[in-house]
């Protein structure tokens, strides 16, 4: 667990920031009061989570009272989709590239799925076809977890306002929050999901912004915490960890985006130059830059290989990366995102997701550049 690794899987999870650990430790040792209680130990815990709430509110462009803490991004997404539908009925719509935490609830409700173009951006004309007065919720992620592609939320919101005026707009900003100004970019959204462990916070905690005026049905019933919207004893240590991680992230946002964006460019350009028959997803040919993707995302498809085999070889060199998603067995799943973008199964089967994060270094990039081209060459030679 402690040997030096080259960690390029930040889209999956991120190293815990020291600020987060420092914030959490007191609650893990003698600050163990239940924030819902009446005595001063409880009130102390309550104060700490409300401080975290303030940080989140500032970072998401909402009021503290509009922040609902959850057990993570999946619960936040489920609360948005199932909660809105349970309260308002109607039809739910989402994009074809959403995380399963949005897609599965939408499918469960018999909702509509809007296609994307070959660059992974929502096809606005196709979306328009799916919008009508029956639509109660439209969910489109701000940035994609596989490709890093950013969706044009302003244009989507405009379309929704026109064609489905009663509909609420939800955005999964889990992958966007570490990199983008979510306050500005998610302004048109009524509901916003985030997750702690994608920004240097702990796992098991996230939040859903529910703007005032938006009503939904809680999915966890019980003691009435979070204004009745999400019952259950607060994961106080997780929440303060999330708050501290969010504060650090917001504080360093521009610097991190610039620094890591440059590392990502070096990595992507280097691999495109060194490995023949490589495609970079979500970037138009001849594009001037990668501003359509979050700065940490380097997502490629290598023709003629299988992701599983490449990831195995990279792990042997202590390089941690991923491709598509892992299903509950641990096997790699074919990517629904690449399928939605029109990639054929074989090319999509050779995808590699290298996701840099706040702790990534130039050395990480150099080691990846040294290991990946020979790995791909070896697999191509073996015909596997």
């Amino acid at each position: 667990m402690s040997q030096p690794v080259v960690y390029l899987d930040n889209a999956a999870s991120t190293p815990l920031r020291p600020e987060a650990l420092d914030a959490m430790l007191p609650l893990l040792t003698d600050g163990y009061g239940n924030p819902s209680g009446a005595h001063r130990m409880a009130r102390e815990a309550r104060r700490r989570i409300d401080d975290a709430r303030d940080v989140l509110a500032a970072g998401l462009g909402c009021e503290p009272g509009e922040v609902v803490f959850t057990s993570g991004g999946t619960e936040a997404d489920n609360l948005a989709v199932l909660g809105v539908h349970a309260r308002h009925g109607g039809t739910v719509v989402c994009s074809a590239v959403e995380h399963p935490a949005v897609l599965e609830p939408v499918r469960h409700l018999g909702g509509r799925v809007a296609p994307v173009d070959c660059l992974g951006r929502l096809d606005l004309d196709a979306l328009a076809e799916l919008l009508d007065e029956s639509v109660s919720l439209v969910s489109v992620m701000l940035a994609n977890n596989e490709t890093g592609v950013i969706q044009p939320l302003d244009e989507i919101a405009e379309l929704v306002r026109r064609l489905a005026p009663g509909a609420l707009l939800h955005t999964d900003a889990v992958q966007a929050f570490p990199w983008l100004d979510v306050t500005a970019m998610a302004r048109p959204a009524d509901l916003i999901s985030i997750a702690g462990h994608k920004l240097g916070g702990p796992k098991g905690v996230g939040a859903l912004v529910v703007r005032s005026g938006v009503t939904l049905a809680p999915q966890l019933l019980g003691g009435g915490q979070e204004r009745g919207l999400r019952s259950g004893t607060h994961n106080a240590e997780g929440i303060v960890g999330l708050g501290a991680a969010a504060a650090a992230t917001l504080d360093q946002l521009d610097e991190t985006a610039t620094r890591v964006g440059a590392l990502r460019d070096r990595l992507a350009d280097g691999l495109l130059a060194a490995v023949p028959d490589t495609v970079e997803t979500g970037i138009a040919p001849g594009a001037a830059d990668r501003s359509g993707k979050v700065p940490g995302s380097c997502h490629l498809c290598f023709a003629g290989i299988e992701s599983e085999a490449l990831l195995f070889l990279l792990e042997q060199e202590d390089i941690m990366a991923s491709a598509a998603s892992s299903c509950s067995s641990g096997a790699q799943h074919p990517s629904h995102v690449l399928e939605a973008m029109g990639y054929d199964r074989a090319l999509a089967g050779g995808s590699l997701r290298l996701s840099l994060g706040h702790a990534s270094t130039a050395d990480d990039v150099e080691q990846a550049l040294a290991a990946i081209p020979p790995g791909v060459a070896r697999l191509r030679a073996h015909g596997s």
Partner: protein
Amino acid sequence: MRVLVAMSGGVDSSVTAALLAHQGFDVTGVTMKLWGGAQDTGCCSVADVDDARRVADQLGIDHHVFNFGDEFERFVVDPYVAAHARGATPNPCIECNRHLKFDKLLRRAGALGFDQVATGHHARLVETPAGRRVGRGADAAKDQSYVLHMLDQDQLARLRFPLGELTKAEVRDLAAELGLRTAHKPDSQDVCFISHTGGGRRRFLAERLALTPARVVNTAGARVGEVDAAELVTIGQRHGLGVSGAAEAQYAVDVDVPGATVTVGSRRELVVDASPVTALRWAGHPVEAVLVQTSAHGRVAEARVADGTVHWARPHRRVAPGQALVFYDGDLVAGSALAA
């Protein structure tokens, strides 16, 4: 030496991994994800992967999962359905071995730098002056050499079957001694991708084929009954043929799916002196007199193989088209063919 052990989550492959690890090999376990979803209960389900992973954890070896679902669909499931559609017998375990375990997995192992692949099959790998041969395992009741008949010299050079000298009881005892969590896990039966709790083979095929109701006739051509799915009838089948009032037991002797006709006959009409075959293959030189096995755990019968035909020493029941016949020279696999 780096050995990749195929671990299904069953006791056999668990003990295989344990034996090799204890013998000092550099062992890595892998489970092939071939079929099914998160809540599936068939073989190699998520629960089975968990078992394999936890056994690997107990043994201190790495465990990986490879998704070969596409290949499994293409080489095992689709042919299984297609065989039923034309009234032939499928051999899914043989095709899985041929295309997945001993092709795809073997190639992947080579690409990843492994020297050998090991499985928990009850079979031996025997070196003879004429080359490597697959031999029967020590436990006659559990012998799996039949499903390994297709392995060639190149493949056998890179394979190990550590359980070949052990009986099933010895394998379970070892598992228990080692405290492996799969020591008492029941063996999976039948076709791994068909759930018996979910309606079995009939339901599986009905979801993929329009099953053909057929008339049942005797060998004189007279109609004697009906079945609602010709695809589900096997040569030699006696029950479930919708036949009543016959003087002696009636067996399916022919299945014609396109013609929607199942022909039944007496025991006398079920047996033949010779069975034509296709896809005849010898492990080395052709062998004159062989013992022929026509199913995974069936009894052998003496025969001679000549002119694309298996000539039975004694009258033998018909073999369904597509069924694999494996020829043994003593306890070693000498060759194979498919019933025509």
